[in-house]
């Protein structure tokens, strides 16, 4: 009868465990509701000469969807594996539920992992795969069947109990792996690029589903990806990593609107970068006036609150392509409104990309700029767009992000 269970019932059961945990915390007094689920304190992991994770400090709050985002080899998987217990930190300490977990083997950590290639057991059917964790805890057979049914209902695979895993599609296998992990009510669910093997459409579908599921069950997710769009779509908090170091963390808007360094600005979305020197700083509004190498004067916001800058410092001004506007040069003298920068240039290349077009415009004062233009009604024909055509690019100073280093 497990198939008749509604996802809601299943959710209720899974969510119940969070309450139980809270009680456990209250009674032991080790942690309270504000204790982060996972706390990584100054953790460094070295493999011989390679430093995979470098002095990482991260606090993962209860019930949130965290994404570890970064290019290949930046240490995302290593971080997950340390939380799961497959690797031991070289230095530093990891706390789970407020308790240090050094030396506790993976099978005694209340953490479950969804592996990139699912790692489903080939010699077991779906139900036995999903029930594996329960059997290790000596859960009674009837109880196991009930919870397996719930978990499968949750991932919308009710009725697939007796299927063989290799007969299922990638997306279905993915869900089995998810159910197998969730059925154990882990404190934290670790997911290592779980959608990596799926095609784009299915991926997008699963992204939304995963996020919805995470909301429903209220379990903390730590999600590894190198796909910025995926991270933006799903995360409560994105942690951008590079070479084993955290570059910046925050919610998606914060990260996109306010990248604190050039790497983040480039990795999350894309940016035009203009090298410049600080001329004056307004500490109260955290704005600065800078002059580019070619003499263009710009004002902008200093994004990194920790940065101390003074006149004469070398900085980079970043602008998002979609914050720039472009129009044909009508011959009118470039006389900009206050707060706006207007530059004359010539189109080097225009690319039509369906919903928007992208133009590479060569300007005298700011070099080559990428400008993105939404193809709204009538917009398509407004710009001639041939190479060599004279155009005017303009943007407001609020688009200028001043990055240090």
């Amino acid at each position, binding site marked *: 009868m497990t198939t008749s269970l509604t996802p809601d019932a299943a959710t209720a059961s899974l969510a119940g465990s969070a309450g139980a945990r809270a009680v456990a915390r209250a009674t032991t007094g080790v942690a309270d509701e504000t204790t982060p689920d996972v706390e990584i304190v100054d953790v460094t992991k070295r493999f011989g000469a390679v430093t995979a994770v470098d002095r990482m400090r991260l606090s993962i709050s209860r019930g949130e969807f965290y994404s570890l985002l970064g290019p290949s080899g930046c240490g995302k998987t290593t971080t997950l594996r340390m939380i799961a217990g*497959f690797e031991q930190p070289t230095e530093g300490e990891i706390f789970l539920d407020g308790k240090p977990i050094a030396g506790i083997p993976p*099978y005694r950590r209340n953490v479950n992992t969804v592996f990139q290639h699912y*790692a489903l*057991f080939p010699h077991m*059917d779906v139900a036995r795969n999903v029930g594996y964790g329960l059997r*290790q805890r000596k859960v009674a057979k009837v109880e196991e069947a009930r919870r397996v049914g719930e978990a499968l209902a949750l991932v919308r695979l009710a009725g697939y109990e007796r299927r063989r895993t290799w007969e299922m599609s990638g997306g279905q296998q993915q869900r089995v792996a998810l159910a197998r992990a969730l059925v154990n009510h882990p404190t934290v669910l670790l997911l290592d690029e779980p959608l990596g093997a799926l095609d784009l459409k299915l991926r997008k579908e699963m992204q939304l589903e995963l996020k919805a599921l995470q909301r429903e069950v209220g379990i903390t997710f730590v999600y590894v990806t190198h796909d910025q769009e995926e991270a933006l779509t799903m995360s409560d908090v994105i942690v951008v990593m590079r070479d084993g170091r955290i570059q910046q963390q925050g919610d998606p808007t914060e990260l996109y609107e306010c990248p604190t360094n050039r790497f983040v600005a480039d990795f999350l979305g894309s940016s035009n970068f203009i090298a410049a020197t600080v001329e004056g700083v307004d500490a109260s509004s955290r704005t600065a006036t800078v002059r580019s190498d070619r003499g263009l004067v710009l004002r902008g916001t200093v994004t990194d609150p920790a940065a101390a800058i003074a006149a004469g410092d070398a900085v980079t001004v970043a602008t998002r392509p979609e914050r720039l506007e472009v129009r044909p040069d009508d011959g009118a003298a470039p006389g900009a409104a206050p707060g706006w920068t207007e530059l004359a240039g010539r189109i080097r290349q225009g690319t039509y990309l369906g919903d928007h077009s992208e133009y590479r415009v060569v300007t005298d004062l700011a070099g080559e700029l990428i400008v993105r233009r939404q193809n709204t009604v009538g917009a398509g024909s407004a710009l001639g767009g041939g190479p060599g055509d004279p155009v005017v690019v303009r943007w407001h100073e609020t688009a200028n992000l001043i990055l240090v280093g």
Partner: protein
Amino acid sequence: MATALTPTPARTGGGRAKSALLTGALLLPASIWYLFLLVLPMGFVVAFSFGEKARNGGYTPAFTLDNYGQVMKGADPFLESLKLATAGTFLTLLVALPLAYFLATRAGSRKGLFVLLLVIPFWTSFLIRTYSWLIVLGRGNLGGFIGGLLGDPNFRLLGTPGAILLGLVYGYLPLMIFPLYVTLERMDRSLIEASKDLGAGRWATFRQITLPIALPGLVTGSILVFIPMMGEYVIPQILGYGRTFLIGNALVLDFLEARNWPLGSAKAVVLIATMLITISVYVWFVNRGRQARGVGVLGARPP
């Protein structure tokens, strides 16, 4: 409509014929080998087993079941060989499994070296290796040493069942290790991590994941080891001091000393039948419950 469709089937039909030809060509050498070195000799053995011994030894055509009657009267060598082969296979498995597991999962970059070390002794003749044990276990060395510890001057290792089993395990270890190693090596390492992640300890993981997945290799290895051990003659002769009368002894006696080919052939047929039955029972036993889920060993669909 019909005419428009005809080219497609014709094309695939031609492709199928070509691929059938290729399949045939690829299988030809093996088929010839199989026919001339297995089927034909087996046919001779079966035919001989119903014949009579020629006056000076050998075979004359006839049809009699006397040979089988005689074989049935003396079943002891079969039982002796069966006992030895079963014990030998089991012990070999016991030694090979951890070793193969180590090689496949823990040897790391030294894996190649270990495999090489494992193989090198087998570049030497089987007989030389077996004789070497005579020296190692002999009174001048290990046998004498242990005898000294026990204070028993008559203690010996050689000529005991222990020495035979040791020789068997040593001689057939690679046949067991390599199929095991290959299946374990091919096994996705993340399965083990997944198991641990889900709360299974080392041993539980080994029992529930590693072992079932290695089962096809284990069965292959056991069969590869069991078959020659059934016919084993040289090791019991050398290390066991010839104190046992095995089916191998019986065959040597029949073929070489008595030159009674029909009787020897009948014994060979019974031996082959015994092995086939034993192996079938074994494979059936291993597959029980597995086949229901389609992950049987030998011929069942691989994961």
